[in-house]
Protein backbone atom coordinates (compact mmCIF):
# COMPACT_ATOMS: atom_id res chain seq x y z
CA UNK A 1 0.00 0.00 0.00
CA UNK A 2 1.43 3.38 -0.99
CA UNK A 3 1.36 6.42 1.28
CA UNK A 4 -1.14 8.17 -0.99
CA UNK A 5 -3.46 5.16 -0.79
CA UNK A 6 -3.12 5.14 2.99
CA UNK A 7 -4.13 8.81 3.20
CA UNK A 8 -6.96 8.33 0.70
CA UNK A 9 -8.46 5.40 2.69
CA UNK A 10 -10.46 4.21 -0.30
CA UNK A 11 -12.00 7.65 -0.80
CA UNK A 12 -13.09 7.98 2.84
CA UNK A 13 -9.92 9.71 4.03
CA UNK A 14 -11.64 13.05 4.60
CA UNK A 15 -14.07 11.59 7.17
CA UNK A 16 -11.52 9.39 8.90
CA UNK A 17 -8.70 11.93 9.15
CA UNK A 18 -11.04 14.73 10.28
CA UNK A 19 -12.14 12.52 13.19
CA UNK A 20 -8.60 11.60 14.17
CA UNK A 21 -7.25 15.15 13.85
CA UNK A 22 -10.12 16.79 15.75
CA UNK A 23 -9.75 14.23 18.54
CA UNK A 24 -5.98 14.74 18.67
CA UNK A 25 -6.36 18.53 18.82
CA UNK A 26 -8.95 18.29 21.61
CA UNK A 27 -6.89 15.78 23.63
CA UNK A 28 -3.68 17.81 23.35
CA UNK A 29 -5.68 20.98 23.98
CA UNK A 30 -7.14 19.54 27.19
CA UNK A 31 -3.72 18.70 28.58
CA UNK A 32 -2.27 22.10 27.58
CA UNK A 33 -5.20 23.96 29.17
CA UNK A 34 -4.84 21.91 32.38
CA UNK A 35 -1.07 22.57 32.52
CA UNK A 36 -1.58 26.32 32.02
CA UNK A 37 -4.39 26.42 34.60
CA UNK A 38 -2.18 24.67 37.13
CA UNK A 39 0.78 26.97 36.46
CA UNK A 40 -1.39 30.09 36.80
CA UNK A 41 -2.88 28.88 40.08
CA UNK A 42 0.49 27.92 41.59
CA UNK A 43 1.98 31.34 40.71
CA UNK A 44 -1.08 33.10 42.18
CA UNK A 45 -0.87 31.11 45.41
CA UNK A 46 2.91 31.59 45.77
CA UNK A 47 2.40 35.35 45.38
CA UNK A 48 -0.33 35.26 48.03
CA UNK A 49 1.84 33.27 50.45
CA UNK A 50 4.65 35.80 50.02
CA UNK A 51 2.44 38.82 50.77
CA UNK A 52 1.02 36.99 53.79
CA UNK A 53 4.54 36.38 55.05
CA UNK A 54 5.49 40.08 54.63
CA UNK A 55 2.27 40.99 56.39
CA UNK A 56 3.02 38.58 59.26
CA UNK A 57 6.61 39.81 59.58
CA UNK A 58 5.40 43.37 60.04
CA UNK A 59 3.14 42.46 62.96
Amino acid sequence: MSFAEFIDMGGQGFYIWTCYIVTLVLFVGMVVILKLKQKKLVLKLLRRYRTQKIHNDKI
Partner: protein
Amino acid sequence: MKNKWQWFHRLSSPKWFYEISGEWLPWIWTITILLFAFGLYQGLYVSPPDYQQGNSVRIMYIHVPTAFASLFFYVVMAVAAAIGYIWRIKLAHMAAISIAPIGAAMTFIALFTGSFWGRPTWGTWWIWDARITSELILLFLYIGYIALHDAYEDREVGDRAAGILAMVGVVNIPIIHYSVYWWNTLHQGATISKFGKPSIDEQMLVALLVMIVAIMLFATAAVLMRTRIEIIDRESHKKWVKEVLES
Protein backbone atom coordinates in the same frame (compact mmCIF):
# COMPACT_ATOMS: atom_id res chain seq x y z
CA MET B 1 -7.46 2.43 68.26
CA LYS B 2 -7.94 1.24 64.73
CA ASN B 3 -11.25 2.42 63.43
CA LYS B 4 -12.93 0.40 60.71
CA TRP B 5 -13.66 3.66 58.90
CA GLN B 6 -10.02 4.72 58.95
CA TRP B 7 -9.42 3.75 55.31
CA PHE B 8 -12.45 5.75 54.32
CA HIS B 9 -11.18 8.89 56.02
CA ARG B 10 -7.74 8.44 54.55
CA LEU B 11 -9.24 7.91 51.12
CA SER B 12 -11.28 11.07 51.46
CA SER B 13 -8.29 13.18 52.50
CA PRO B 14 -7.36 15.67 49.76
CA LYS B 15 -3.72 15.61 50.91
CA TRP B 16 -3.50 11.83 50.55
CA PHE B 17 -5.20 11.95 47.16
CA TYR B 18 -2.87 14.70 45.96
CA GLU B 19 0.20 12.69 46.94
CA ILE B 20 -0.91 9.32 45.57
CA SER B 21 -2.20 10.79 42.28
CA GLY B 22 1.12 12.59 41.86
CA GLU B 23 2.89 9.24 42.10
CA TRP B 24 0.50 7.51 39.71
CA LEU B 25 0.27 10.13 36.96
CA PRO B 26 3.68 9.54 35.29
CA TRP B 27 2.88 5.80 35.08
CA ILE B 28 -0.59 6.38 33.70
CA TRP B 29 0.78 8.76 31.05
CA THR B 30 3.51 6.30 30.02
CA ILE B 31 1.06 3.42 29.60
CA THR B 32 -1.44 5.70 27.82
CA ILE B 33 1.11 6.86 25.24
CA LEU B 34 2.34 3.31 24.57
CA LEU B 35 -1.24 2.08 24.15
CA PHE B 36 -2.09 4.96 21.80
CA ALA B 37 0.97 4.20 19.66
CA PHE B 38 -0.02 0.55 19.35
CA GLY B 39 -3.76 1.22 19.09
CA LEU B 40 -3.38 3.78 16.29
CA TYR B 41 -1.03 1.52 14.34
CA GLN B 42 -3.42 -1.38 14.79
CA GLY B 43 -6.52 0.69 14.03
CA LEU B 44 -5.30 2.72 11.06
CA TYR B 45 -2.94 0.23 9.42
CA VAL B 46 -3.15 -3.40 10.55
CA SER B 47 -6.89 -3.90 10.94
CA PRO B 48 -8.86 -4.55 7.72
CA PRO B 49 -11.59 -2.35 6.22
CA ASP B 50 -15.15 -3.43 6.95
CA TYR B 51 -16.81 -5.55 4.26
CA GLN B 52 -19.77 -3.15 4.14
CA GLN B 53 -18.47 0.17 5.43
CA GLY B 54 -14.96 0.12 3.99
CA ASN B 55 -12.30 2.15 5.75
CA SER B 56 -14.77 4.43 7.54
CA VAL B 57 -15.08 1.67 10.16
CA ARG B 58 -11.76 2.99 11.52
CA ILE B 59 -13.71 5.91 13.03
CA MET B 60 -15.07 3.29 15.44
CA TYR B 61 -11.70 3.18 17.24
CA ILE B 62 -12.33 6.73 18.48
CA HIS B 63 -16.13 6.79 18.47
CA VAL B 64 -16.78 3.73 20.65
CA PRO B 65 -14.11 4.46 23.32
CA THR B 66 -15.13 8.13 23.71
CA ALA B 67 -18.82 7.20 23.82
CA PHE B 68 -18.07 4.56 26.46
CA ALA B 69 -15.96 7.07 28.43
CA SER B 70 -18.75 9.68 28.22
CA LEU B 71 -21.17 7.28 29.93
CA PHE B 72 -18.67 5.78 32.37
CA PHE B 73 -17.40 9.13 33.63
CA TYR B 74 -20.92 10.49 33.97
CA VAL B 75 -21.75 7.64 36.36
CA VAL B 76 -18.49 8.23 38.28
CA MET B 77 -19.32 11.95 38.47
CA ALA B 78 -22.84 11.27 39.75
CA VAL B 79 -21.56 8.76 42.33
CA ALA B 80 -18.91 11.26 43.49
CA ALA B 81 -21.56 13.99 43.72
CA ALA B 82 -23.79 11.63 45.74
CA ILE B 83 -20.95 10.73 48.14
CA GLY B 84 -20.19 14.43 48.56
CA TYR B 85 -23.84 15.20 49.09
CA ILE B 86 -24.61 12.45 51.57
CA TRP B 87 -21.40 12.28 53.62
CA ARG B 88 -20.27 15.85 52.97
CA ILE B 89 -16.90 14.71 51.70
CA LYS B 90 -15.14 17.63 50.05
CA LEU B 91 -12.81 15.50 47.93
CA ALA B 92 -15.83 13.83 46.28
CA HIS B 93 -17.22 17.22 45.20
CA MET B 94 -13.80 18.24 43.92
CA ALA B 95 -13.62 15.03 41.85
CA ALA B 96 -17.17 15.51 40.53
CA ILE B 97 -16.58 19.03 39.22
CA SER B 98 -13.23 17.91 37.77
CA ILE B 99 -14.80 15.08 35.79
CA ALA B 100 -17.45 17.29 34.15
CA PRO B 101 -15.34 19.14 31.52
CA ILE B 102 -13.49 15.98 30.54
CA GLY B 103 -16.72 14.00 30.28
CA ALA B 104 -18.20 16.80 28.19
CA ALA B 105 -15.22 16.67 25.84
CA MET B 106 -15.61 12.89 25.48
CA THR B 107 -19.32 13.31 24.74
CA PHE B 108 -18.59 15.97 22.14
CA ILE B 109 -15.98 13.77 20.41
CA ALA B 110 -18.40 10.81 20.41
CA LEU B 111 -21.08 12.95 18.74
CA PHE B 112 -18.64 14.56 16.31
CA THR B 113 -17.04 11.29 15.18
CA GLY B 114 -20.49 9.70 15.04
CA SER B 115 -21.57 12.43 12.64
CA PHE B 116 -18.48 11.94 10.47
CA TRP B 117 -19.06 8.21 10.51
CA GLY B 118 -22.75 8.58 9.71
CA ARG B 119 -22.18 10.68 6.59
CA PRO B 120 -20.27 8.03 4.54
CA THR B 121 -22.18 5.02 5.97
CA TRP B 122 -25.78 6.23 6.42
CA GLY B 123 -25.63 9.18 4.03
CA THR B 124 -26.51 11.71 6.71
CA TRP B 125 -24.59 13.81 9.24
CA TRP B 126 -27.32 13.69 11.83
CA ILE B 127 -30.62 12.01 12.63
CA TRP B 128 -32.85 12.70 15.62
CA ASP B 129 -32.95 9.08 16.71
CA ALA B 130 -33.00 7.94 20.33
CA ARG B 131 -29.30 7.09 20.66
CA ILE B 132 -27.98 10.33 19.21
CA THR B 133 -30.57 12.54 20.91
CA SER B 134 -29.97 10.98 24.34
CA GLU B 135 -26.18 11.34 23.86
CA LEU B 136 -26.76 15.01 23.00
CA ILE B 137 -28.78 15.35 26.21
CA LEU B 138 -25.77 13.88 28.03
CA LEU B 139 -23.63 16.71 26.63
CA PHE B 140 -26.21 19.23 27.88
CA LEU B 141 -26.23 17.53 31.30
CA TYR B 142 -22.46 17.91 31.59
CA ILE B 143 -22.61 21.55 30.47
CA GLY B 144 -25.62 22.24 32.70
CA TYR B 145 -23.81 20.72 35.67
CA ILE B 146 -20.79 22.99 35.13
CA ALA B 147 -22.95 26.07 34.54
CA LEU B 148 -25.12 25.42 37.62
CA HIS B 149 -22.04 24.77 39.74
CA ASP B 150 -20.41 28.02 38.67
CA ALA B 151 -23.61 30.04 39.10
CA TYR B 152 -23.28 30.05 42.89
CA GLU B 153 -21.06 32.49 44.71
CA ASP B 154 -20.62 29.96 47.52
CA ARG B 155 -18.77 26.98 46.11
CA GLU B 156 -20.21 24.53 48.63
CA VAL B 157 -23.78 25.50 47.78
CA GLY B 158 -22.88 25.06 44.10
CA ASP B 159 -21.45 21.60 44.84
CA ARG B 160 -24.71 20.46 46.38
CA ALA B 161 -27.11 22.08 43.92
CA ALA B 162 -25.22 20.85 40.85
CA GLY B 163 -24.77 17.50 42.57
CA ILE B 164 -28.54 16.98 42.56
CA LEU B 165 -28.63 17.66 38.82
CA ALA B 166 -25.81 15.12 38.27
CA MET B 167 -27.68 12.49 40.30
CA VAL B 168 -31.02 13.03 38.55
CA GLY B 169 -29.27 12.95 35.17
CA VAL B 170 -28.19 9.34 35.75
CA VAL B 171 -31.59 8.19 34.42
CA ASN B 172 -30.29 9.18 30.99
CA ILE B 173 -27.46 6.61 31.10
CA PRO B 174 -29.54 3.41 30.68
CA ILE B 175 -31.66 5.24 28.10
CA ILE B 176 -28.54 5.90 26.01
CA HIS B 177 -27.28 2.36 26.45
CA TYR B 178 -30.52 0.56 25.57
CA SER B 179 -31.80 3.11 23.03
CA VAL B 180 -30.56 1.04 20.07
CA TYR B 181 -32.65 -1.90 21.27
CA TRP B 182 -35.73 -0.06 22.48
CA TRP B 183 -36.24 2.11 19.41
CA ASN B 184 -35.89 1.52 15.72
CA THR B 185 -32.81 3.27 14.43
CA LEU B 186 -30.06 3.54 11.84
CA HIS B 187 -27.51 3.19 14.64
CA GLN B 188 -25.81 -0.19 14.87
CA GLY B 189 -25.97 -2.30 18.03
CA ALA B 190 -23.16 -3.04 20.44
CA THR B 191 -19.89 -4.12 18.85
CA ILE B 192 -18.65 -6.09 21.81
CA SER B 193 -21.04 -8.08 23.93
CA LYS B 194 -20.29 -9.64 27.27
CA PHE B 195 -22.25 -12.67 26.19
CA GLY B 196 -21.25 -14.84 23.30
CA LYS B 197 -18.52 -14.55 20.75
CA PRO B 198 -18.04 -11.04 19.35
CA SER B 199 -19.19 -10.65 15.76
CA ILE B 200 -16.12 -8.62 14.87
CA ASP B 201 -12.84 -9.39 13.08
CA GLU B 202 -10.04 -10.28 15.49
CA GLN B 203 -7.65 -7.51 14.33
CA MET B 204 -10.48 -4.98 14.67
CA LEU B 205 -11.28 -6.26 18.13
CA VAL B 206 -7.65 -5.83 19.23
CA ALA B 207 -7.57 -2.26 17.88
CA LEU B 208 -10.87 -1.43 19.55
CA LEU B 209 -9.97 -2.89 22.94
CA VAL B 210 -6.56 -1.19 22.99
CA MET B 211 -8.10 2.16 22.05
CA ILE B 212 -10.78 1.76 24.73
CA VAL B 213 -8.13 1.24 27.42
CA ALA B 214 -5.95 4.05 26.01
CA ILE B 215 -8.80 6.59 25.94
CA MET B 216 -10.10 5.55 29.38
CA LEU B 217 -6.60 5.97 30.82
CA PHE B 218 -6.18 9.30 29.05
CA ALA B 219 -9.45 10.56 30.51
CA THR B 220 -8.46 9.25 33.94
CA ALA B 221 -5.13 11.09 33.75
CA ALA B 222 -6.89 14.30 32.71
CA VAL B 223 -9.41 13.92 35.55
CA LEU B 224 -6.59 13.38 38.06
CA MET B 225 -4.76 16.48 36.77
CA ARG B 226 -7.94 18.54 37.02
CA THR B 227 -8.73 17.22 40.52
CA ARG B 228 -5.21 18.08 41.72
CA ILE B 229 -5.73 21.67 40.56
CA GLU B 230 -9.09 21.78 42.35
CA ILE B 231 -7.47 20.44 45.53
CA ILE B 232 -4.71 23.02 45.76
CA ASP B 233 -7.19 25.76 44.87
CA ARG B 234 -9.70 24.83 47.58
CA GLU B 235 -7.12 23.84 50.20
CA SER B 236 -4.78 26.77 49.52
CA HIS B 237 -5.14 28.00 53.11
CA LYS B 238 -3.84 24.65 54.45
CA LYS B 239 -0.27 24.35 55.63
CA TRP B 240 0.50 21.25 53.55
CA VAL B 241 -0.44 22.98 50.29
CA LYS B 242 1.83 25.89 51.13
CA GLU B 243 4.65 23.48 51.90
CA VAL B 244 4.14 21.47 48.71
CA LEU B 245 4.02 24.53 46.48
CA GLU B 246 6.98 26.30 48.10
CA SER B 247 9.24 23.26 48.02
